[in-house]
């Protein structure tokens, strides 16, 4: 986002750069401006608060979830606590999932979990950041519960037929976090190295964790 302030090596025309900020075209974009300006004028919200909230959002990313998963891979006791009471376990690592129940689900050689929110877009944002567009799409929401294997194939993820696939549907009060299977030959890797193998999609269950070389298996 900040290439403008951090990358001054290349030459660019600042006038043209400003035009990259798109002008509102749609009714709803004008509506957003109107609501925001009114709320600020009436002292319901301040511009500063909105800006701070946007910055707070940008700090949320899947890395937090990955730290939790990496810990569960190296510490069985932690994993059991995570499976037992997600909220309490992630609090040990300094994460809070406010007023929602956090349920961790472990993928094994026999069982693969995949998360969807068929009714809207419920997602563990505090741990994984903002959901990807496809998670909120009509297609994913419709198909994930009916033909998960076909959906997984579209994601390039092949789960053997012998493995049961369990699709869980999020609710407004409950968020799921998938613990992907720890890849083979990673026994000697540090927790920090393991974090890099744990992708956002592997914690949604539409992919597996990366292999020991950081490649998709």
């Amino acid at each position: 986002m900040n290439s403008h302030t951090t990358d001054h090596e290349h030459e660019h025309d600042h006038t043209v750069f400003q035009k990259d900020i798109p002008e509102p075209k749609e009714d709803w974009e004008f509506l957003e401006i109107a609501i925001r300006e009114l709320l600020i004028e009436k002292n319901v919200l301040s511009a500063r608060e909105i800006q701070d909230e946007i910055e707070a959002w940008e700090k949320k990313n899947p890395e937090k979830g990955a730290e939790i998963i990496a810990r569960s891979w190296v510490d069985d006791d932690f994993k059991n606590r995570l499976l037992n009471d997600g909220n309490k376990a992630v609090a040990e690592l300094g994460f809070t999932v406010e007023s929602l129940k956090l349920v961790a689900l472990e993928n094994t050689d026999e069982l693969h979990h995949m998360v969807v929110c068929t009714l809207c877009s419920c997602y563990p944002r505090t741990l994984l950041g903002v959901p990807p567009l496809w998670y909120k799409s009509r297609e994913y929401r419709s198909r994930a519960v009916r033909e998960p294997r076909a959906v997984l194939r579209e994601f390039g993820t092949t789960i053997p037929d012998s493995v049961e696939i369990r699709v869980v549907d999020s609710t407004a009060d409950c968020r799921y976090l998938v613990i992907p299977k720890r890849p083979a030959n990673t026994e000697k890797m540090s927790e920090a190295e393991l974090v890099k193998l744990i992708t956002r999609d592997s914690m949604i269950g539409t992919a597996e964790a990366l292999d020991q070389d950081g490649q998709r298996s």
Partner: protein
Amino acid sequence: MTTRLISDLGGLPAGSIDRSEHEPTMTERRIDAMMILLRAKPRSFWVSDENRRTIESLEPTTYAESAYYERWVLAMKSLLLEKGILTEAELDEKVSEVRSRKQLAKI
């Protein structure tokens, strides 16, 4: 005969999943931020269930054709009116003012 809710998509036939991603626009970020602030303490103007209720009661065609954050801003508008935080008249006036201002800026 039951009438399925517009939001109740689970199990319906649908096409392939477009997995392209995009950086959220400023408009989307601001809608998201305002929604969080209005719902969170200390304001607590509404709870997430009310947010869902307003999204789910959008006109079916609006729901189907609108962008994700478009649905959010429409829901935010109904809740702000419903809770008496803004009035329809002041909002209409503001929208036209913003439109003419942005139009002038282009000339």
